[in-house]
């Protein structure tokens, strides 16, 4: 069977601004789970990683599994070289001036006999989740620390499953053991149906499905669906120390709702961009690109929207609505379905329209006496 006959459907991928071949018909969920991660704020504390690990993957057979990981770019990667390997084999990733992708997706580039262009990591590739941590791309020249901006750069990339609109894991599974939920777009591996062929591990370019040594079948991030079903954001989002994450639902690309913070950041302001959109999966974790990293690196990683996203991000101080949306990151455990700015507050609402978050644009300042007579102690004031 040839690849062209295998990709029976033409589906619309808004991130690459064109139709592409996919083995199943376009079937967007009622609402799509989506996340915005502000890379500029991540401190690589790995609280998200540990929260996920203790919640879901502390079992036997899951030792090397991190459904959430945070790696340092440019050198870090878990599993090792997950990105370099696929980038190397996907030829000619070019975009035209209108932002249309001219190269091939991982589906279109599948070699003979394969469903998807992919590769299978070795066990060892998972054994160094912190490789390259805090390593800069180059040496900081002597004295450059003091002279302002220097050329050395690095940034932290927090990664989870993208709950893709066109998942490669799902397309590659010959048993149809992987499914995408109609109600929220979460992509799951049916733990009773999987037979451990690892076609998904091979196919997912983000390497977000994992093989369990003890159960001998594959597992992946489940988007904390028990929390989602209760109207709460996932563990990695709730626990994020840097408040870099916001989870919500994305509307269909042709009907963005301006008051939905996810739609607002992704579709309206275009300040958050998909990771490697050229792979063709329409991933649903959107990143605000790091502002200090060479553009070429960012174009490759986030596509042609980088310049505009960074410009918009830098202008947030003068854009109250955008700033308001940013303030809602980490403001509540609940899922914010709509938001507005009222006076000096950003307000977040749940699906019933009840207010679940209220964040002031400026935190009030309290000055306390140096000596507290009531409890008989000295206090410092911390800005």
């Amino acid at each position: 069977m040839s690849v062209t006959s295998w990709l029976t459907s033409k589906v619309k991928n808004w991130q690459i601004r064109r139709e592409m071949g996919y083995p199943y018909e376009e079937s967007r969920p009622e609402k799509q789970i989506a996340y915005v991660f502000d890379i500029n704020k991540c401190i690589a504390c790995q609280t998200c990683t540990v929260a996920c690990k203790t919640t879901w993957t502390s079992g036997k057979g899951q030792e090397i599994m991190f459904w959430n990981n945070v790696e340092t770019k440019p050198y870090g990667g878990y599993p090792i070289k997950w990105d370099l390997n696929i980038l190397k084999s996907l030829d000619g990733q070019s975009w035209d001036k209108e932002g249309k992708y001219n190269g091939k997706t991982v589906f279109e580039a599948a070699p003979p006999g394969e469903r998807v262009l992919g590769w299978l990591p070795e066990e060892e590739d998972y054994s160094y989740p912190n490789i390259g941590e805090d390593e800069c791309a180059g040496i900081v020249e002597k004295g450059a620390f003091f002279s302002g901006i220097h050329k050395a750069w690095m940034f932290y990339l927090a990664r989870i499953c993208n709950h893709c609109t066109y998942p490669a894991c799902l397309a590659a599974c010959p048993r149809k053991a992987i499914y995408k939920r109609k109600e929220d777009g979460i992509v799951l591996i049916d733990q009773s149906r999987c037979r451990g062929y690892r076609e998904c591990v091979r196919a997912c370019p983000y390497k977000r499905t994992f093989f369990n040594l003890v159960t001998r079948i594959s597992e992946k991030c489940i988007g904390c669906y028990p929390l989602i079903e209760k109207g709460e954001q996932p563990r990695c989002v709730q626990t994020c120390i840097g408040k870099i994450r916001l989870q919500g639902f994305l509307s269909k690309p042709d009907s963005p709702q301006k008051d939905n913070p996810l739609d607002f950041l992704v579709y309206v302001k275009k300040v958050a961009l998909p990771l490697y959109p050229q792979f063709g999966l329409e991933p649903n974790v959107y990143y605000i690109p790091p502002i200090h990293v060479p553009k070429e690196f960012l174009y490759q990683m986030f596509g042609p929207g980088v310049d505009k996203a960074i410009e918009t991000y830098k202008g947030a101080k003068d854009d109250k609505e955008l700033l308001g949306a940013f303030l809602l990151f980490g403001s509540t455990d609940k899922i914010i379905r709509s938001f507005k700015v009222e006076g000096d507050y950003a307000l977040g609402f749940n699906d019933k329209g009840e207010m679940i978050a209220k964040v002031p644009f400026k935190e009030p300042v309290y000055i306390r006496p140096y000596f507290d007579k009531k409890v008989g102690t000295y206090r410092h004031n911390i800005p």
Partner: protein
Amino acid sequence: MIKRLSLLLLLVGLFLINPHCANVEQNQNIIKSVKVKEVPFKDVRSSIWKKAPVTRINVIPQNMTLPSLQTPTIQYINVRSLHNDNWIAFLLEWEDKTRDAVVDVNKFTDQVAVQLPLDPKSLPAFMMGNKGGRVHIIHWKAIWQDDIEKGYRDVQTLHPNYWVDLYFFSEPMIYAEGEFPLQPTTVDYFITPEALNYIPGAYARNPISIFHRTQPVEEAIAEGFGTFTTQPKQNAIGWGRWEKGVWKVIIAKQIVSDDPNDAPVPEKTYIAFAAWNGSDKNVGARKHYAPWVELVVER
């Protein structure tokens, strides 16, 4: 002329010294099952097997669905069959230089499978059957053989130095012989529902995640690609040995069974084969196969 003659002699010589060529049934399209008093279910070396003729079944790489197998590493399976009126057994032998009996992200196990039609009179598609045309599959894996003979192939089987402080809710909370942190080497400790929460395949009762197998084979029914379904009732048996680069695997089933998912074994039916080479990362559809071959059961 002399050159040709010596080539011929060389070929004849090779034929004679290669044990897998000797005594091979000429007709590749028929497997005869010979009646014996006792079938050596667990003894691949038993001389009783010699009573059955060998049929050499050529296998080819799976090329009908994606993913497919591009390069074959197994050429043929030598098949013998015995029965005792109650059970029919097949001895399958094929060359495989490496014994692959563990799994890991990038490690795959050797496997072999036989397939019989539920209705031999209207033969379904030879590759996993077709809608309405069901097939009965009996599947043997090297890793299951080792699970049974050596104990469950665990994390520490592959990675003896994996060190974990604690597996949540594992029962009992093992602090093995004064050792801390603990290094459990068996999944038997994970029996509480809470602990099983962290072993999702077992929690979901996935037939792949069975820790206490009694047979190295699994029975399934299928009616087309991707429909392989483990039978609720498992009554087939199997046994395998790897000796000097050759796998010798016995797969046996009841001739008459009350399991409606089992294929009948009339005097004439059909059988198909599949084989996987673990070291070449064969798995699932990345396999070698042989289409239907006639199976004659001599009564």
